[in-house]
């Protein structure tokens, strides 16, 4: 297996923060880089194990599709689903503009 270096750079932190949709201050980024570096160095011990013939486990117990009959059922009331909205406009969730003018 091609093993990447575990040393994580500030550029990596920037990139990952963008993927995670998480705004970080400059100080946050440096602290995050150093903490992730420590954790990733620890996690590196996994590479010591030979797992060539090992199947991955995603769930510890067998998980299968569970089908139910396609029967109409009431949903939660619209008003209940809107009650927690931070910015509501009539029956809609309002968000900042997505399309440039």
């Amino acid at each position, binding site marked *: 297996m091609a093993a990447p270096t575990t040393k994580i750079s500030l550029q990596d932190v920037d990139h990952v923060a963008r993927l995670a949709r998480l705004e970080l201050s400059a100080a946050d980024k440096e602290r995050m880089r150093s903490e992730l570096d420590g954790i990733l160095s620890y996690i590196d011990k996994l590479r010591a194990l030979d797992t060539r013939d090992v199947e991955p486990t995603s769930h510890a117990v067998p998980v299968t599709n569970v089908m139910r009959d396609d029967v109409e059922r009431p949903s939660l009331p619209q008003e209940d689903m809107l*009650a927690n909205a931070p910015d509501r406009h009539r029956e809609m969730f309002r968000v900042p503009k997505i399309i440039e003018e």
Partner: protein
Amino acid sequence: MAELASLTAHELGARYRSGETTPTQAVTEHLARVEALDPHVRAFLTVTREDALRRAAEADARFRAGTPRGPLDGLPIALKDVLCTRGIRTTCGSKILERFVPPYDATVVARLFAAGAVLLGKLNMDEFAMGSSTEHSAFFATHNPWDLARVPGGSSGGAAAAVAAGMAPLTLGTDTGGSIRQPAAFSGVLGMKPTYGRVSRYGLIAFASSLDQIGPFTRDAEDAALLLGAIAGADPMDATAIDVPVPDYRAALGQGIEGLRLGVPAEYFIDGMDPEVEQAVRAAIATLEKLGARTEPVSLPHTEYGLAAYYVIAPAEASSNLARYDGVKYGLRASGARDLIDMYSKTRAAGFGAEVKRRVMLGTYVLSAGYYDAYYGQAQKVRTLVRRDFDQAFARVDLIVAPTTPGVAFKMGEKADPLQMYLNDIFTIPVNLAGLPGVSIPGGFTRAGLPIGLQLIAPAFDEATLLRAAHAYQTATDWHTRRPQLDVATVERAPR
């Protein structure tokens, strides 16, 4: 301790049935205790006083009419604030959900209400269940009732401390890497993580979906049997809640452990662990032998890799689950955003605490292009190796007995380094990776008076044997009957 608040739930239930006391009397007494002690312990995020008194009065009426709903009717309970309660704020210990009021009940909550249980309130936790001390709650830290300068463990620290302090005889927590068993050990109570799939996760705010499981905190095995029986079983709302029959856990409790085969894993007795913990656990094993169990050494050789695998898998799943907090449909929204993406990023920066950000970043990193196979793929294969270790051990023994944690409750603020905090969970995490049931029960005290946890682990869906062994141990020991010296006069003098 006030009298009714010192009883177990099954003892309270017996007094309801004999007419010696009523749900309203018991609930009132527990609420009074919360009012007196919780300013110091800080286990509760929300106290649902009026709702509790209303439900208690309804239970009174059922007992008066001779039609109680069953063994949980009228019993006070409190819930970790990760379980959705309709119309009652559910914060998950996070600023991002500070004002979130769920439109539905979690399945476990609906089952408890249907059984007549009386909700006292919602309990503090590490934000999104990420932590081992409850210091990562966005609101305040919870204190250990045995020593208010120490942590109660985490992430279900409020649920453990509430039982330890006699503020509720029953609570529910969740366990993703040890978040029930570790605080149970630190707080001197029983805490059980059922098999993955034993209890529905519908309405449990997700952290790591392949690991999360809901379970009880109680004082004794009989109460745990009672509470697990009420919440376990298949659920059409959760396809991972497996349709395996739920036995009568209480009925099997008294059968004893004559001839039971217990495995003692060498890998759970390590250099650097607290010698008083090791001593207590060895003594507990000797007690179990006196009760008729046979012990033999077993080996779980991949134990030392469990923590590393967990810190890939759990953050990876968390980074995906927590993507839903975008400030659109519920929860916090930050102001002053230039556009939609900026709104997401600012909302998440303002709403998540440091530990949550760390795990979201770590999870996003290990799943990102170029790193997926080396980290996530490898961790899932190591998960298989950890699971095989248990399979091989359980081919020879019925249960595994081990310490719950390498040490006892630490001082607040003592573990500032994230990795040091994570190392608390080395003996609990492998059980989650393998999806197995495990319980921590009080197994002694240090000379300084801090509780020590004894962990029992069973094959999948064999909670009945776990509870039977816990019950047998508790008939031969009195650790679980000890109470912290936590009266109002004591806490007034203690450090805050």
